[in-house]
Protein backbone atom coordinates (compact mmCIF):
# COMPACT_ATOMS: atom_id res chain seq x y z
CA UNK A 1 0.00 0.00 0.00
CA UNK A 2 1.31 3.45 -0.89
CA UNK A 3 2.07 5.98 1.81
CA UNK A 4 -0.65 8.28 0.55
CA UNK A 5 -3.23 5.68 1.52
CA UNK A 6 -2.44 5.55 5.23
CA UNK A 7 -4.99 7.55 7.14
CA UNK A 8 -5.59 8.29 10.78
CA UNK A 9 -8.45 9.79 12.73
CA UNK A 10 -8.04 12.48 15.39
CA UNK A 11 -10.92 12.99 17.78
CA UNK A 12 -11.55 15.66 20.44
CA UNK A 13 -14.92 15.25 22.10
CA UNK A 14 -17.51 15.12 19.32
CA UNK A 15 -15.20 16.60 16.71
CA UNK A 16 -13.17 14.31 14.47
CA UNK A 17 -11.20 14.54 11.25
CA UNK A 18 -8.98 12.37 9.14
CA UNK A 19 -5.38 12.96 8.24
CA UNK A 20 -3.17 11.35 5.61
CA UNK A 21 0.32 10.30 6.60
CA UNK A 22 3.03 12.18 4.70
CA UNK A 23 5.56 10.28 2.63
CA UNK A 24 8.54 12.58 3.00
CA UNK A 25 9.73 11.26 6.37
CA UNK A 26 8.92 7.55 6.10
CA UNK A 27 10.79 6.37 9.20
CA UNK A 28 8.95 8.81 11.44
CA UNK A 29 5.60 8.28 9.77
CA UNK A 30 6.01 4.50 10.09
CA UNK A 31 6.90 4.81 13.78
CA UNK A 32 3.90 7.06 14.32
CA UNK A 33 1.62 4.53 12.59
CA UNK A 34 2.99 1.68 14.69
CA UNK A 35 2.47 3.70 17.89
CA UNK A 36 -1.27 4.14 17.40
CA UNK A 37 -3.64 4.41 19.12
CA UNK A 38 -2.46 7.41 21.11
CA UNK A 39 -4.67 8.69 23.91
CA UNK A 40 -3.71 11.78 25.86
CA UNK A 41 -4.35 15.35 26.83
CA UNK A 42 -3.92 18.21 24.40
CA UNK A 43 -2.76 21.50 25.80
CA UNK A 44 -2.47 24.75 23.93
CA UNK A 45 1.04 25.66 22.87
CA UNK A 46 2.94 28.16 24.97
CA UNK A 47 5.53 29.08 22.35
CA UNK A 48 4.35 27.61 19.04
CA UNK A 49 1.33 29.74 18.22
CA UNK A 50 -1.88 28.27 16.84
CA UNK A 51 -1.26 24.67 17.83
CA UNK A 52 -1.96 22.13 20.53
CA UNK A 53 0.40 19.45 21.71
CA UNK A 54 0.27 16.04 23.31
CA UNK A 55 3.11 13.88 24.53
CA UNK A 56 3.11 10.12 24.32
CA UNK A 57 5.32 7.38 25.73
CA UNK A 58 4.06 4.94 23.08
CA UNK A 59 6.66 2.95 21.21
CA UNK A 60 8.24 3.07 18.73
CA UNK A 61 7.61 6.80 18.20
CA UNK A 62 8.88 7.74 21.67
CA UNK A 63 12.23 6.07 20.95
CA UNK A 64 12.99 8.23 17.92
CA UNK A 65 15.71 10.72 18.71
CA UNK A 66 16.35 12.33 15.36
CA UNK A 67 14.44 14.80 13.23
CA UNK A 68 14.10 13.12 9.87
CA UNK A 69 12.78 16.10 7.89
CA UNK A 70 13.39 19.25 9.90
CA UNK A 71 10.75 21.95 9.62
CA UNK A 72 9.92 24.81 11.91
CA UNK A 73 6.67 25.98 10.29
CA UNK A 74 3.74 23.73 11.17
CA UNK A 75 1.40 24.30 8.25
CA UNK A 76 -2.25 24.64 9.31
CA UNK A 77 -3.78 21.18 9.63
CA UNK A 78 -0.41 19.44 9.96
CA UNK A 79 0.87 17.12 12.69
CA UNK A 80 4.58 17.21 13.47
CA UNK A 81 6.67 15.10 15.84
CA UNK A 82 9.42 16.47 18.05
CA UNK A 83 11.63 14.10 20.03
CA UNK A 84 11.92 14.75 23.74
CA UNK A 85 14.99 13.53 25.65
CA UNK A 86 12.75 12.35 28.49
CA UNK A 87 11.70 9.41 26.34
CA UNK A 88 8.42 10.68 25.03
CA UNK A 89 7.39 12.00 21.65
CA UNK A 90 5.78 15.41 21.40
CA UNK A 91 3.11 15.75 18.76
CA UNK A 92 2.04 19.25 17.70
CA UNK A 93 -1.24 19.64 15.84
CA UNK A 94 -1.71 23.05 14.27
CA UNK A 95 -4.92 24.89 13.55
CA UNK A 96 -3.44 28.11 12.15
CA UNK A 97 -0.11 29.86 11.86
CA UNK A 98 2.28 27.88 14.04
CA UNK A 99 5.97 27.15 14.42
CA UNK A 100 7.98 24.68 16.41
CA UNK A 101 9.49 27.01 19.01
CA UNK A 102 10.94 26.92 22.47
CA UNK A 103 12.29 29.36 25.03
CA UNK A 104 15.35 30.26 22.98
CA UNK A 105 13.66 30.50 19.60
CA UNK A 106 12.74 28.29 16.68
CA UNK A 107 13.18 24.55 16.98
CA UNK A 108 12.63 21.75 14.50
CA UNK A 109 10.24 18.86 14.11
CA UNK A 110 9.28 16.28 11.50
CA UNK A 111 5.93 16.53 9.69
CA UNK A 112 4.02 13.24 9.81
CA UNK A 113 0.44 13.85 8.70
CA UNK A 114 -1.75 16.32 6.84
CA UNK A 115 -5.44 17.03 7.35
CA UNK A 116 -7.92 15.76 4.75
CA UNK A 117 -10.42 18.48 3.86
CA UNK A 118 -10.89 21.52 6.06
CA UNK A 119 -11.57 19.72 9.37
CA UNK A 120 -13.12 22.93 10.63
CA UNK A 121 -14.83 21.39 13.63
CA UNK A 122 -11.70 19.65 14.90
CA UNK A 123 -9.50 22.69 14.33
CA UNK A 124 -12.03 24.80 16.24
CA UNK A 125 -11.78 22.29 19.11
CA UNK A 126 -7.99 22.72 19.07
CA UNK A 127 -8.35 26.48 19.13
CA UNK A 128 -10.83 26.34 21.98
CA UNK A 129 -8.17 24.92 24.32
CA UNK A 130 -6.59 28.37 24.42
CA UNK A 131 -9.52 29.86 26.31
CA UNK A 132 -11.16 26.73 27.69
CA UNK A 133 -8.14 24.71 28.80
CA UNK A 134 -6.78 21.25 28.15
CA UNK A 135 -8.90 18.36 26.94
CA UNK A 136 -8.62 14.74 25.86
CA UNK A 137 -7.57 13.58 22.40
CA UNK A 138 -7.47 10.22 20.68
CA UNK A 139 -5.43 9.44 17.59
CA UNK A 140 -6.25 6.14 15.90
CA UNK A 141 -5.82 4.39 12.61
CA UNK A 142 -8.82 5.19 10.41
CA UNK A 143 -11.12 2.20 10.62
CA UNK A 144 -11.35 1.52 6.91
CA UNK A 145 -7.59 1.72 6.37
CA UNK A 146 -4.96 -0.94 6.98
Amino acid at each position, binding site marked *: MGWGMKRIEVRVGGAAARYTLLEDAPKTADAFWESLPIEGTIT*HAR*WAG*SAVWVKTPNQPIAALDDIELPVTSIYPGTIVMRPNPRGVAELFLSYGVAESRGPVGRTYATPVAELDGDGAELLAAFGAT*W*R*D*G*STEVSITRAEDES
Partner: protein
Amino acid sequence: MTKLRITIDGITAVAELKDAAAPNGVAAVLAALPLRTRVVHASRSGNCAVVHDAALRDETAGIEGQVSMYYPGMVAYDPVRGYLVFAYGQGQARSNTGTHWVTYLGDVVENAAELAGKLQDTRDRGALDVLIEQGERR
Protein backbone atom coordinates in the same frame (compact mmCIF):
# COMPACT_ATOMS: atom_id res chain seq x y z
CA MET B 1 4.72 55.16 43.02
CA THR B 2 1.74 53.87 41.07
CA LYS B 3 0.52 50.42 41.99
CA LEU B 4 -1.81 47.96 40.33
CA ARG B 5 -3.96 45.45 42.14
CA ILE B 6 -4.48 42.30 40.08
CA THR B 7 -7.14 39.87 41.27
CA ILE B 8 -7.53 36.44 39.70
CA ASP B 9 -9.58 33.61 41.14
CA GLY B 10 -9.55 35.01 44.70
CA ILE B 11 -5.85 35.91 44.72
CA THR B 12 -4.82 39.57 44.76
CA ALA B 13 -1.30 40.66 43.90
CA VAL B 14 0.24 44.10 43.72
CA ALA B 15 2.55 45.44 41.04
CA GLU B 16 4.65 48.59 41.18
CA LEU B 17 4.76 50.53 37.93
CA LYS B 18 7.67 52.40 36.33
CA ASP B 19 6.32 55.94 36.62
CA ALA B 20 9.58 57.53 35.59
CA ALA B 21 10.68 55.13 32.89
CA ALA B 22 7.30 54.51 31.26
CA PRO B 23 5.07 57.53 31.93
CA ASN B 24 3.00 57.18 28.76
CA GLY B 25 2.40 53.48 29.30
CA VAL B 26 1.45 53.96 32.95
CA ALA B 27 -1.00 56.71 32.00
CA ALA B 28 -2.52 54.61 29.21
CA VAL B 29 -3.06 51.62 31.49
CA LEU B 30 -4.49 53.75 34.33
CA ALA B 31 -6.96 55.26 31.87
CA ALA B 32 -8.40 51.78 31.26
CA LEU B 33 -8.95 51.00 34.97
CA PRO B 34 -10.79 49.51 36.67
CA LEU B 35 -10.80 46.72 34.13
CA ARG B 36 -12.83 43.53 34.46
CA THR B 37 -11.83 41.22 31.67
CA ARG B 38 -10.18 37.86 30.97
CA VAL B 39 -6.59 36.73 31.23
CA VAL B 40 -5.44 34.02 28.87
CA HIS B 41 -2.19 32.11 28.51
CA ALA B 42 0.22 33.30 25.84
CA SER B 43 0.33 31.18 22.73
CA ARG B 44 3.67 32.35 21.33
CA SER B 45 5.43 34.12 24.17
CA GLY B 46 6.11 31.39 26.68
CA ASN B 47 5.58 31.49 30.43
CA CYS B 48 3.19 34.37 30.74
CA ALA B 49 -0.49 35.25 30.54
CA VAL B 50 -2.01 38.15 28.67
CA VAL B 51 -4.85 40.58 29.20
CA HIS B 52 -5.98 41.68 25.77
CA ASP B 53 -8.57 44.41 25.90
CA ALA B 54 -9.44 47.25 23.54
CA ALA B 55 -9.48 49.63 26.51
CA LEU B 56 -5.72 49.11 26.83
CA ARG B 57 -4.96 50.25 23.30
CA ASP B 58 -3.17 53.56 22.93
CA GLU B 59 -1.36 54.09 19.67
CA THR B 60 0.19 57.32 20.92
CA ALA B 61 1.90 55.87 23.99
CA GLY B 62 4.87 54.37 22.16
CA ILE B 63 7.26 51.77 23.52
CA GLU B 64 9.16 52.95 26.60
CA GLY B 65 12.03 51.18 28.33
CA GLN B 66 11.86 48.70 25.52
CA VAL B 67 12.34 45.04 26.28
CA SER B 68 11.73 41.78 24.48
CA MET B 69 12.48 39.18 27.17
CA TYR B 70 10.20 38.54 30.13
CA TYR B 71 11.23 37.26 33.53
CA PRO B 72 9.09 36.03 36.44
CA GLY B 73 6.98 38.76 38.01
CA MET B 74 7.43 41.20 35.17
CA VAL B 75 4.57 43.31 33.85
CA ALA B 76 4.89 44.36 30.21
CA TYR B 77 2.68 46.45 27.99
CA ASP B 78 2.11 46.57 24.27
CA PRO B 79 0.12 49.75 23.64
CA VAL B 80 -0.52 49.14 19.94
CA ARG B 81 -1.98 45.67 20.44
CA GLY B 82 -3.56 46.53 23.80
CA TYR B 83 -1.78 43.72 25.64
CA LEU B 84 -0.87 43.71 29.30
CA VAL B 85 1.47 40.80 29.96
CA PHE B 86 2.09 39.14 33.32
CA ALA B 87 5.06 36.78 33.28
CA TYR B 88 5.41 33.86 35.68
CA GLY B 89 8.59 32.48 34.11
CA GLN B 90 10.83 33.09 31.15
CA GLY B 91 9.11 34.51 28.09
CA GLN B 92 9.55 36.78 25.14
CA ALA B 93 7.39 39.20 23.16
CA ARG B 94 6.81 37.25 19.96
CA SER B 95 4.46 37.30 17.01
CA ASN B 96 3.83 35.16 13.92
CA THR B 97 7.09 36.07 12.33
CA GLY B 98 9.51 36.79 15.12
CA THR B 99 10.14 38.87 18.18
CA HIS B 100 9.16 42.42 19.00
CA TRP B 101 9.53 45.14 21.59
CA VAL B 102 7.20 46.04 24.44
CA THR B 103 7.20 48.49 27.33
CA TYR B 104 8.67 47.35 30.62
CA LEU B 105 5.80 48.59 32.77
CA GLY B 106 6.52 47.20 36.23
CA ASP B 107 7.02 44.29 38.60
CA VAL B 108 4.78 42.27 40.88
CA VAL B 109 5.91 43.02 44.43
CA GLU B 110 3.26 41.39 46.63
CA ASN B 111 1.81 37.90 46.37
CA ALA B 112 3.99 37.18 43.34
CA ALA B 113 4.10 33.42 43.91
CA GLU B 114 0.33 33.15 44.36
CA LEU B 115 -0.30 35.20 41.24
CA ALA B 116 2.22 33.11 39.30
CA GLY B 117 0.25 30.00 40.21
CA LYS B 118 -2.94 31.48 38.80
CA LEU B 119 -1.22 32.68 35.67
CA GLN B 120 0.23 29.24 35.10
CA ASP B 121 -3.23 27.75 35.66
CA THR B 122 -4.49 29.47 32.53
CA ARG B 123 -2.45 27.02 30.51
CA ASP B 124 -4.50 23.99 31.54
CA ARG B 125 -7.72 25.61 32.74
CA GLY B 126 -8.09 28.18 29.98
CA ALA B 127 -8.90 31.85 30.41
CA LEU B 128 -9.78 33.20 33.85
CA ASP B 129 -11.56 36.34 35.02
CA VAL B 130 -9.28 39.16 36.12
CA LEU B 131 -9.89 42.46 37.85
CA ILE B 132 -7.21 45.12 37.50
CA GLU B 133 -7.49 48.22 39.68
CA GLN B 134 -5.24 51.07 40.66
CA GLY B 135 -3.63 50.32 44.02
CA GLU B 136 -2.43 53.79 44.96
CA ARG B 137 -2.73 57.17 43.33
CA ARG B 138 0.28 58.50 41.47
